[in-house]
């Protein structure tokens, strides 16, 4: 008699597309064949997880067509099964998978479209957090402003691509003009994806604003991030950029990082 763990490991292998022999051993063959009984479970696992991915990645699915998507999703499920029962959290690794999945390597923009769709899913399900009250900023001493480290809304993801993924995404919405053509040479997209009220939205950012937010999101202080973007482009209007940062309601909180701690780190 196999231990329960052995039975479950054998099932795990069989249901994720592997060798079925181990799982078949313990199944009673009454009436219907053991393989046919096991296949019902295998089909359910693959079909429901593929459906979950299809729901998270409708544009990727449309770009490659449903049959190819189902094929790729089945391979993805085998390589990256969910680690949590919350299926809205499943599939974040698809972009990385697609980037190395040989049959769609020619669609160079596809992984970045997947990253955008994942950011939309994340934004929809992220925790709520009240937006920072800007009056708290007005109370800061001017000398403290550079040591401010803001915290962004949990729904925010910054997505950058050398492809116009925002245009690709829009052109593949159900209500899009079917005759619209996306110019892949239109250039890079730098997007801030987040939830606004009950809706998920994304804004297009210029290079400076995008870099500033990426640095702040990575934990740098306002002083460090501002200095870095000015080195890149000394012509930037930093005051206007900071005004936009505080006006677009993506910050929820901030801490002040004392200068001596900065030096120590």
């Amino acid at each position, binding site marked *: *008699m*196999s*231990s*329960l*763990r052995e*039975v*479950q*490991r054998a*099932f*795990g292998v069989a*249901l*994720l597309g592997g060798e079925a022999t181990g799982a078949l051993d*313990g*199944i*009673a063959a*009454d*009436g*219907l*064949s*053991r393989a*046919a*009984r*096991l*296949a*019902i*479970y295998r089909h*359910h*696992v693959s079909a*429901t*997880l593929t459906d*979950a991915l299809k729901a998270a990645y409708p544009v990727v699915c449309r770009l490659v067509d449903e049959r190819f998507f189902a094929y790729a999703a089945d391979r993805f499920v085998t390589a990256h*099964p*969910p*680690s*949590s*029962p*919350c*299926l*809205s*959290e499943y599939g974040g690794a698809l972009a990385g998978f697609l980037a190395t999945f040989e049959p769609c390597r020619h669609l160079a923009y596809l992984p970045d479209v997947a990253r955008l769709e994942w950011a939309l899913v994340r934004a*929809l*399900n*992220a*925790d*709520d957090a009240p937006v920072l009250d800007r009056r708290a900023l007005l109370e800061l001493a001017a000398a403290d402003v550079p040591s401010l480290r803001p915290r962004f809304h*949990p*729904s925010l993801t910054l997505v950058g691509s050398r492809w116009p993924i925002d245009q690709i995404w829009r052109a593949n919405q159900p209500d899009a003009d079917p005759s619209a053509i996306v110019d892949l040479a239109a250039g890079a997209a730098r997007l801030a994806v987040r*939830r606004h009220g*009950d809706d998920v939205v994304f804004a297009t950012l210029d290079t400076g604003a995008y870099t500033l937010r990426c640095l702040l999101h990575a934990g740098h202080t306002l002083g460090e991030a501002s200095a870095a973007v000015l080195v890149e482009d000394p012509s930037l209007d930093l005051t206007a950029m900071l005004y936009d940062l505080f006006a677009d309601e993506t910050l929820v909180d901030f801490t002040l990082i004392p200068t001596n701690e900065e030096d120590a780190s």
Partner: protein
Amino acid sequence: MRPRDGGAPMLPAQAGVGLRAPHVADILAQHPPLGWLEIHAENYMGGGPAMRALERVRTHYPLSVHGVGLSLGTAGSLDVCHLDRLARLVERCEPALVSEHLSWSVVDGAYLNHLLPLPLTEESLALTARHVDEVQARLRRRLLVENPSSYLRFTDSAMPEPLFLAELVRRTGCGLLLDVNNLYVSSENLAFDALAYLDALPLDAVGEIHLAGHTVNDADGQPILIDDHGARVANAVWRLYALALERVGPVATLIEWDSNLPALGVLLVEAAEAQGLLDRVAEGAHVVAA
């Protein structure tokens, strides 16, 4: 450990439906006459608009929280992180009932998204009982455990499922969620007597009933019933439900629908059908057609 429910509200012995995202707006706008609503726990473990809508829904209806992800039958330890998330959800939405399944779905950290069958052995029973104890201690309330729909039987299974469930109830003090469609599907797929199963269950532990539709598929030329929650409740399942009600008495009954989800109105018709049977049983009338 004997769990106590403290001051938890009771689920009324009425018909309810499973709350699905496409129906939320209609439910909030129309407040249809339903005794209660059930949510899938794993759909409400994030934040955002879904959770806000649930906060509104629960001001109008008692809730039941139905988990699909705890994997009570997994060899080894429960996922305490997932149990914590369930506990936080239960604290937040104060449901009248919390339920899970006699099944497993996690192996070596991979979640297989299916309520998989357990060999019905002493090893499985001891393990499941330990996990049910752990969940009840963490949630500080009684858990209902649902009978699975089955497409296979293990050669190692040493006891019939109703006896396994009866022993689980005896060891842990948990309750049962009797899924009448699952019982019917399993009895057809594994060729056993559904009524004998029912009579072997500790029926006083049944705190909720599930009803759902299934599909009849062909497997190697033989019919196999698939529990897909994608159709109206089958006539044979309504008959088995009536037989169950005559034994259990009126008990909170859910219409579950997951695939091919129709308009809310279709679920309300099914719920009204269940409510009609519940009302007649409550009046002491016979509901099983002669």
